[in-house]
């Protein structure tokens, strides 16, 4: 479903933020995307939701080489991808219902059917009383649920979520994760970027772990060094006496993943 082949990515003339990324996500799989802040999670997600093109390498999605795809061919691919952005990216002048309905309207859905469907989903995520509210009047958690509803309303082939449970209480977080898992069971290939390790352990899916722009696959049940995040942080802020052996999770060999 998503195939990255030796992908490198840089912004402008800067250094590479993603280096030699290769992996293959099978249709209907569920993966967490983990790694410290600044490791390149959002950049990797941007490549997956076709908001950026890589500097090198080849990305295949839906059996199409999207790196070579023409601009005018991207919208139909993007319509098959649901994205929950970390900063929600809702349209402030539209109501919750209108925001969630956008993907359906863009795909040419009919008014009454859309509204029914949208209201049902918003009720399900606990926003029954907030349907006509605009994002500036919603709390962080409510906005996040609207963003999630917008991402899943079309039951996309691929669901990408960037910190989807960051702003909600544990009960709602559990419910949202349940929704993702259910969607995944229905065939949606799901990638969830998160820092919440308890969530990762609870769901128990494979991890794509990014560190310094490089990707490492951590299989379900594999143990990860406990000090991983701390060590990364200390390396990031130390005066530069980096010991390469301090932390070295096994990089994925290409033939292992592809």
């Amino acid at each position, binding site marked *: 479903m998503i195939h990255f082949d030796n992908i490198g990515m840089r912004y402008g003339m800067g250094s590479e933020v993603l280096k030699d990324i290769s992996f293959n996500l099978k249709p209907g799989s569920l993966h967490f995307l983990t790694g410290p802040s600044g490791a390149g999670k959002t950049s990797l997600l941007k490549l997956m939701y076709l*908001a950026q*093109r890589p500097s090198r390498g080849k990305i295949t999605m839906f059996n199409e080489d999207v790196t070579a795809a023409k601009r005018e061919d991207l*919208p139909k691919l*993007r319509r098959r991808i649901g994205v929950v952005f970390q900063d929600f990216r809702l349209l402030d002048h539209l109501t919750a219902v209108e925001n969630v309905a956008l993907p359906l309207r*863009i*795909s040419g859905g009919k008014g009454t059917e859309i509204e029914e469907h949208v209201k049902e989903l918003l009720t399900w995520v606990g926003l029954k009383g907030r349907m006509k509210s605009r994002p500036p009047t919603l709390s962080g958690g409510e906005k996040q649920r609207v963003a999630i509803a917008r991402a899943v309303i079309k039951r996309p082939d691929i669901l990408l979520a960037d910190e989807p449970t960051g702003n909600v209480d544990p009960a709602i977080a559990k419910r949202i994760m349940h929704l993702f898992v259910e969607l995944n069971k229905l065939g949606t290939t799901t990638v969830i970027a998160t820092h919440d390790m308890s969530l990762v352990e609870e769901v128990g899916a494979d991890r794509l772990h990014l560190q310094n722009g490089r990707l490492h696959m951590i299989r379900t049940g594999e143990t990860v060094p406990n000090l991983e995040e701390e060590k990364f942080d200390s390396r990031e802020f130390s005066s530069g006496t980096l010991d390469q052996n301090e932390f070295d999770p096994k990089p994925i060999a290409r033939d292992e993943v592809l």
Partner: protein
Amino acid sequence: MTKAIHFLPDEKNHEATRLLPYVMAVMVYLSALALMGSMMLHKGFGDWTESLSNRLTVQVTTADREARETQVRQVIQLLRNTPGIEHVRKLNEVEIEQLLEPWLGVGNVTSDLPVPDILDVTVSRALKINLDALNAQISKISDNIHLDDHQQWLGRFLRLMDMVEYTALGILLLVVMATICMVIFGTKAGMAENRETIAIMHHLGARDSMVARAYQNRFMIYGLKGGIIGLVLAFVTLISLIYLSRDLASGLAPVPDLPMVEVGILLVVPIIAAAISMLTARITVMRDLRRMV
């Protein structure tokens, strides 16, 4: 074609472009005035010069009344026998008075004022008359008979009118170009203001044409709104100008009317403004979006 999706903030919240209809109104106002001025000059003076182009005027200025009347009869006879002359008519006293009134004032044309006899001659459009030969024959009757084909002063006048007309069309062209530049600027400002919204729409799978449609519809409404306001103001100005020129012209020059065909053409101006605005916005958005991922 998919239905337009309302995703841009309301017009009143659109800081970059909310004054655009009023600027459009000024542009349409100037365009309408330039266009109407050009059309009215073209039609008004065109009709007038057309009516003069197949006319000759013969003035018999002999002072002695009896001799003058004899010469008039001889000239009329000569003209009627000349091939290509369709009609010869001597202007009566009342008509001559009306011609002199703009210069001398009403009631100042008295019977003791020496005025020439004037013959109004209509020439066939089909046959070309040799005016030099005709003039020579008239001169044989008397040296006090003058043939005027109006061409000398009419030529200068027509050149002046042509220049005024071309200037009006030039102004119209400049106003249209300024309008296009303004719409491009407004569209770009509107896009910059909503860059995030456009990016979100793209991520959700919106095509460029979908985004462009929202802008082109908005700018079409701006064009139409501004067009109607500008046209109403232009009509008020034109009617006022015609009303004032009636008082000033006093028969010296033809006073143009508000002709219905030209008014009809003018009614299309807001639609043209809307179309220019819409097309410009669409092209601008499509070109700008092509630079995005």
